[in-house]
């Protein structure tokens, strides 16, 4: 595999590195991964990613004017024009189970689970296993990390989770079981270290993995002892811990087997970029890097959180996102909501273009990847969960047809699309949550 300059996020990494760290070393890294990588490409890798944007959209500016084959895009989606043949817009999908008394919490957590969140602020929270995790169990077992969950919110804010719902619902998109939310990491440096280690020689790294492995062995015994000491209810919890121990053991075995790259010293994102857009792009760069190096094949990215009050003065929206989203059909606010939507889509377009430009096997990374962009809310003014903004991006290797706008006459479960995308990465389920079927029209034109 030839690593071209475009394959690496030169400029953006510089921003993230912050200071004095020389970038060209990064170029040196990918070739060390490539022999293994090239080998895997031959077996036609399937990858799946999800990007979440909060608080719905201005449907008028979002929805393409025509259906079927499209050659033009609506204002909010305009940034995707260069890759129009790699995207399909889908209208009138809905999340019935997101209608709750905690609509922001459920917009987030129902997006990938399509399940109804149990109303509780206690430790008994319960949802459904999310679609990315179902995919990870099937297509993530050959990689060091079955899946990657990332976001951009660095501090856990207080007081802005829906009353009656544990913050876990509003913070976490991915749930590996109905009771197991997966934490979202926003620090690029931490993400980088999780993907590629924190430096040192391969021997030192292997020695560290071996030590972690032996600590896990001991944890297994220790938890077994603990289980004997506890009552029936608490034993369930210990059982969950044991599952986690086994999963981490599996990951360590994978990492031990893998031909780990020797990372140049000092060469990792040092901190969080001060400008949010730079942060988002850096997180996208890391996603491309993770997929390219085949460290993981399933990614969820929460671009922003529900009830975000981020302002976007540089695009003409000095007002905070959440109050703008309650637009009350005020034309001025609707314009601003559309601007935020277009802005978020332009950042997503950066990812898709980057995937498109990155060579992978016999084509581009995008050819072997499917990404879904969307929100768990439709019209944010009334907190509804119908006519969700959804865009799917992918390439020919994913058995995916782009350049289309599919609009359902009747509100159709988002779960149908989840099932369809699972099909495309080789994971076949009869049903998922409230699904009623599959989404037609995503097949390539000439198969």
């Amino acid at each position, binding site marked *: 595999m030839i690593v071209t300059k475009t394959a690496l996020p030169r400029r953006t990494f510089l921003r993230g590195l912050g200071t004095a760290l020389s970038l060209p070393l990064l170029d040196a890294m990918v070739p060390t991964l490539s022999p293994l990588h090239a080998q895997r490409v031959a077996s036609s890798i399937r990858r799946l990613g999800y990007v979440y944007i909060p608080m719905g959209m201005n449907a008028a500016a979002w929805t393409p004017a025509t259906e079927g084959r499209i050659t033009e895009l609506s204002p909010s989606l305009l940034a995707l024009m260069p890759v129009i043949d790699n995207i399909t817009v889908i209208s009138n999908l809905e999340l019935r189970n997101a209608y709750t008394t905690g609509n922001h919490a459920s917009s987030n957590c129902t997006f990938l689970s399509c399940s109804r969140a149990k109303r509780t602020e206690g430790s008994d929270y319960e949802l459904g296993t999310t679609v990315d995790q179902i995919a990870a169990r099937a297509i993530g077992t050959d990689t060091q990390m079955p899946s990657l969950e990332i976001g951009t919110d660095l501090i856990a804010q207080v007081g802005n989770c829906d009353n009656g719902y544990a913050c*876990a619902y509003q913070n976490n998109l991915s749930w590996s079981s109905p009771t197991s939310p997966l934490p979202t990491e926003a620090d690029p440096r931490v993400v980088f270290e999780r993907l590629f280690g924190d430096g040192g020689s391969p021997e030192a790294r292997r020695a560290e993995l071996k030590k972690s492995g032996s600590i896990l062995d001991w944890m297994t015994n220790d938890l077994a002892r603990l289980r004997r000491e506890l009552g029936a209810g608490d034993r369930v919890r210990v059982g*969950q811990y044991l599952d986690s121990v086994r999963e981490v053991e599996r990951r360590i075995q994978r990492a031990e087997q893998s031909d780990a790259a020797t990372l140049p010293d000092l060469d990792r994102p040092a901190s969080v970029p001060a400008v949010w857009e730079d942060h988002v792009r850096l997180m996208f760069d890391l996603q491309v890097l993770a997929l390219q190096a085949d460290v993981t094949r399933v990614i969820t990215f929460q671009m922003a959180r529900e009830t975000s009050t981020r302002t976007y003065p540089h695009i003409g929206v000095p007002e905070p996102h959440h109050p703008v989203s309650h637009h009350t059909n005020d034309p001025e606010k609707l314009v601003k909501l559309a601007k935020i939507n277009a802005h978020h889509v332009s950042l997503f377009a950066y990812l898709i273009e980057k995937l498109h430009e990155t060579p992978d096997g016999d084509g581009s990374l995008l050819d072997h990847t499917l990404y879904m962009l969307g929100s768990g809310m439709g019209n944010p003014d009334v907190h509804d969960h119908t006519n969700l903004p959804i865009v799917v991006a992918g390439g020919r290797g994913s058995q995916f047809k782009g350049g289309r706008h599919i609009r359902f006459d009747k509100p159709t479960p988002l779960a149908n699309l989840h099932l369809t995308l699972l099909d495309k990465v080789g994971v076949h389920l009869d049903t998922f949550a409230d699904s009623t079927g599959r989404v037609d029209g995503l097949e390539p034109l000439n198969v």
Partner: protein
Amino acid sequence: MRVGGLMHNRWTACLAASVAFLVAFAVILAGEPRQQSATVPSASPSPDRATLDKYCVTCHNGRARAGGLALDTTDVSQVAGDPATWEKVVRKLRGRMMPPAGMPRPDEPTYEALATHLETALDSGAAARPNPGRTDTFRRLSRVEYQNAIRDILSLDVDVSSLLPKDDASHGFDNVANGELSPTLLERYLAAAQKVSRAAVGGTLPSPASHVVILPSDLTQEDHLDGLPFGTRGGTIVRHTFPLDGTYEIQMRLSRDRNENVEGLTEPQQVELMLDGERVQLFGVKPNRNQSGAYYADEAVDKDLKARIHVAAGPHEVGVVFPRKTFALEETERQPSLAHFNMDRHPRVQIALYSVSIAGPFEPGTLTETPSRRRLFVCRPASAATEDDCAKRIVSTVARRAFRRAVTDADIEAPMRFYKEARAAGDFDDGVEMALRAVLASTEFLFRIERDPRTVKPQTPYRISDVELASRLSFFLWSSVPDEELLDAAIAGTLSRPATLERQVKRMLASPKAEALVTNFAGQWLYLRNLAAANPDARTLPDFDDNLRQAFKRETELFVESVVQEDRSALDLLRANYTFVNERLARHYGIPNVYGSRFRRVTLGDDSNRGGILGQGSILTVTSYANRTSPVLRGKWILENIVGTPPPPPPPNVPPLKDTDTNGRLLSMRERMAQHRASPACAGCHQLMDPAGLSMENFDAIGRWRVRTESGSSVDASGGLPDGSTFTGMSGLRAALLRKPDMFVGTLTEKLMTYGLGRGLEYYDAPTVRDIVRDARGQDYRFSSLVLGIVSSDPFQMRMSQ
């Protein structure tokens, strides 16, 4: 109102006004066990029955069941039989939230009589059948707790945000409902154990690593910053733990504008690098002149701002500052805005620091002593023969601190095995490091585990052990592990003796570690934590910068700390006539004669708009949007955190509001909010929330006093509380809150208990809260009386078995 139409009209009214309550309470009540009263209502109706019949059963009857509640058939003489329902009734009565506005309401004596009767009955019912509740068996250490525990166990400061993911909060606190351990989390804890044990032992040669600190981009650096040497301006101090003696490279970068030019560089300036307060090097930077004679600053300006210095292992302070020029003050005085960080609106006048990076070690030397090594190595083996004994002492000592109990041979068997393996492959330190890594990865360290004793029958309240009590205490007051003295008392079995307990609590509150009550508890209770993410709009609020953000935080922290440390009345949190300011904050508040960056206590005059947390910039900013105030957010904050009656969430499918009136005129914020309260779906809650927030309208979105709103109209600060009281402005709000001291103190007690117990409070906790508030009342609600009340209570000392 015609009598004949009364029932019908009232019924319609209660339907309309209570849609939101209905939705909320139907959910709340669903699934809760309701005990059926077996007794038949007595023949002669009691006054309580009469009150209920007159004011409540119109909506809350067997047919309508508003909020899932039927009070017509419930026996009010058997209140203790259904505490879950009646506690809700009490809460609504105490907050005067029911009957809803617009419906006939009882007079004050009637309200009081009914509420008091119900409370008395509930309290005696609870005394007869105590239910201390059940804390979660597993509670994972939160980020803050982990960081503090490492500090106390190993004398090591770690940056926990790079070790562990952020915690999800429940019931407003991130130490509630966190028993989960996903594979991702477990991975992170394993990695943290490795990093922490390596840093604590030191000596292992890591590959050179860099630590980069980037200063907030909106930090104004024209003036002296608190905590930095006098005679300097701007800059920062980086506290960094150096892993090994050796040479480290410190590199500084200057702040640039978006054209990549160094900001504020119009003449030669100096940068000073310091280590532990001593000058290491003084650098000069100067602007370049381009062909047309204009100044510009290119990439090369700060490329030589670096030094290779020898540093001994352990924690050190790396300082980077700018020597202050004598005329700098005058120059900044001329600027209209106090904030200087933005090239378009209020540019920097002088150069500013962007980042400091510390890389190394290069040419590593030997390892000298560090605080963490001194804390960890309680012995040093004199010879190879005594190594194992010494290792055992080290491991036992650290395991005792980390597991927060006496350790057995079985506890240290595995860590010692790890020690031996690593010792065989390396040296003594390697062995200790591996044993420590195992201790830090143990569930006994990562979780606070409370076990039901085998002898206790199911569903029975039991007293937790003294050792468990010690951890409850230390995590409540210190957000950390118990210290030796507390642990000794617990292991000796004397901690639960009331006199010992009181002595320990007072000792702990006086300790600097009680700062956690301010930073961790109050940081979450009052939403101070959100200040870090508050980014007011630079166009409408150009005076805001990081200096002000930090000053807001500091003011409230110092203020809350003064109430805790001086053991003042909790009511002082609302009514104190003093606060803490530095020059920047004093100017923001319009307080004269305060100079310099140092914070000091100032007494406020009777005519001051400030005093108490409600008038502090921190609270007023975190309850605002970036470009305007939000009476809804502020009102909700007051109800949730001060009054203790959080409004239910908005119902699904709220209808949109109109922006204009019938003539097409754009409605003002107040008018639109009035419409909010007129819409049946919204009114139930908004008529409770909004008025409290509206009374705070004299403070803008960054807490400045104002007489005109964002739109230019004059401020109308009339408002009210759910109890029906109406008033104007902050002083009116404060007075109304202080008229019902039990309400605020009760809310604070509930918040402290939620945080201290790590669980949401339930109906069966209400008698305890009332009891604590009653006892505290006799002691002028002193802060320690609340803490002692909580610590001595059944929920804190007991637990219901499974």
